[in-house]
């Protein structure tokens, strides 16, 4: 899985730091012992709820009918996949995640390239551009709902004219606009850090050798950025897949289920429909989907840029 490859970039330095130590094993364990409980405990605590969810997903259990809990095998999964609302929510989640991560990264890349240059007031501009990432997501969602999309007072209709009710005519696109707005600064910060870690000598050498701007960007800057881009895509995908606030506050998943994503649908089924069995089955599916989407997004992107290999 790509997430894991990413997460282990330091294996080599680790190996270097740990030459095979022929010390007595018992001594090593004595030193280790005080730390292990913390780790084991932590892992247990983070994994047990998920195992419980897996267990519930094989049960038929609705809180509205007390005593209804019994084992049904895979039936919840069959029901869930037969549920067209679930399939719609799944599709929305994929669209939301892929589009938002890609658009936010492209915008973030553009802004980072701008901010990488010296100009008057750069510090101020950078701070201002970061602001959307710092405000409460709940506040951001309300802010877009009222200031941008409102049919009567919203800025969009003020600028474009007309009486479009954005949130009911283009619910998913509206939510995506807000999510992109919220996440672009994060991508920008990360990519900017990547840009600023470039060595100036290499860039100047490329210029002296007569490489054009586009050429320099494509063959020096982009490969250098690839790790940063991967990381940005991975972290972005993890968070965007879980988008809840924006949907809950802007559209309530509607109209109908037009903008319902999986986290919101699970929440509805579990805490408004009280169907524990089915919502758990959906949860398990979401976990699998999260892993697939984050892997897929990365693969796709790096095939497009063709920068994945060879650098450092």
């Amino acid at each position, binding site marked *: 899985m790509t997430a*894991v490859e990413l*997460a282990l*970039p330091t294996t080599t330095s*680790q190996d270097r*730091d*740990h030459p095979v130590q022929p010390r007595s094993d018992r001594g090593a364990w004595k*030193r*280790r012992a*005080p*730390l*292990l409980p913390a*780790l084991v405990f*932590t*892992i247990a605590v*983070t*994994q047990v709820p*998920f195992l419980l*969810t897996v267990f519930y997903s094989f049960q038929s259990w609705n809180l509205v009918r007390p005593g209804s809990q019994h084992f049904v095998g895979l039936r919840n999964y069959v029901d869930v996949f037969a549920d067209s609302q679930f399939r719609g929510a799944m599709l929305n989640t994929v669209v939301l995640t892929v589009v938002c991560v890609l658009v936010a990264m492209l915008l973030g890349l*553009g*802004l980072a390239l*701008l901010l*990488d240059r010296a100009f008057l007031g750069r510090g101020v*501009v950078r*701070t*201002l551009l970061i*602001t959307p990432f*710092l*405000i*409460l997501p*709940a*506040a951001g969602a*309300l802010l877009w709902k*009222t200031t941008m999309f409102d049919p009567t*007072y919203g*800025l969009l209709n*003020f600028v474009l004219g007309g009486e479009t009710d954005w949130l009911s005519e283009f619910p998913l696109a509206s939510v995506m606009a807000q999510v992109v*707005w919220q996440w*672009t600064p994060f991508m920008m910060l990360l990519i900017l*850090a*990547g840009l600023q870690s470039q060595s100036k000598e290499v860039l100047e050498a490329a210029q002296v050798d*007569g490489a054009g*701007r*586009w050429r320099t*960007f494509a063959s020096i800057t982009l490969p250098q950025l690839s*790790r940063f881009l991967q*990381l940005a895509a*991975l972290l972005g995908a*993890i968070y965007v897949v*879980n988008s809840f*606030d924006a949907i809950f*506050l802007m559209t309530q998943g509607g109209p109908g289920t037009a903008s319902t994503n*999986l*986290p919101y649908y*699970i929440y509805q089924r*579990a*805490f408004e429909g009280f169907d524990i069995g089915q*919502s*758990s089955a959906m949860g398990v599916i*979401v976990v699998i989907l*999260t892993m697939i989407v984050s892997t897929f997004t990365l693969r796709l992107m790096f095939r497009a840029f063709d920068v994945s290999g060879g650098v450092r």
Partner: protein
Amino acid sequence: MSVSTTWPAARGANRSRRAGGRPRRQGLLSWVALHSLGLALGLMFLLPFVFVLLTAFMSDQQALTATLWPREWHPENFAEVFTSAPMLRYLGNSLLYAVLATAGMLLSSVPAAYALARLRWRGSNLAFLLVIAAMLLPPQVVAVPLYSLWANNHLTGTLWPLIIPYFLGDAFSIFLLRQFFLTVPQDYLDAARVDGCSELSVLVRVLLPMVRPGLAAASLFTFLYTWNDYFGPLLYTGEAQQSWTLSLALASFRGAHRDTQWNLTMAATIVVMLPVILLFLFAQKSFVRGITFTGVK
């Protein structure tokens, strides 16, 4: 692609002059194009805030109209936010949640991250994988078993179901701290051990002072995440208004007053935004270092 135009104009101009071809005017043109692009993008990101700020100063009536500039300025709207809703209580709740969660994260995740970074045993890779898996887990997935656990202990309606888990370890922070711990050369730690330090005092006396930026970044992330959290408080305290956090209060601020008092809603939005923006301005450096450290060498 627009990217190609974003090289320093001066450098670009030099290059084309040296190449002996293009006139200098192109450098100027791309400079103008670049700055207008930057300005447009910047405006796109800022416009909503400007609108919020202006609306926050309007009178009740004017806030209902589609005008942009306040006819009269009403700074007292900001004071009214605090009198019309128990904002200080919500602020206190948000702080309680964010500060205790951050403290709990440091207590629990530092030893776990150290064990993952420095101790090798059979299964240490599996342990690390499990931490990553927990990081990928959407909170909604495990909400049901956790909710029933807290309900059985009569803690729903308070913020404790959100705070206590941080004292048991937080997957993202463990991951982040591990990456920082790996940057400290093993020799330092070995030297301390030769001098007779126990593993615990190696951690506390030698390692922690060396990874202070890492601790700052992990704290900042945890603080920001819990401060921003909407789903958690909604799930556990939705019915119990005395435990609401700012996120929840802000969303309901508008609900409770319907669409009539937009100026107050906007003023409340600004009141809620300010602390985090101030925090970020103070801690910008370690924040950036934090996100770049999570995966990049």
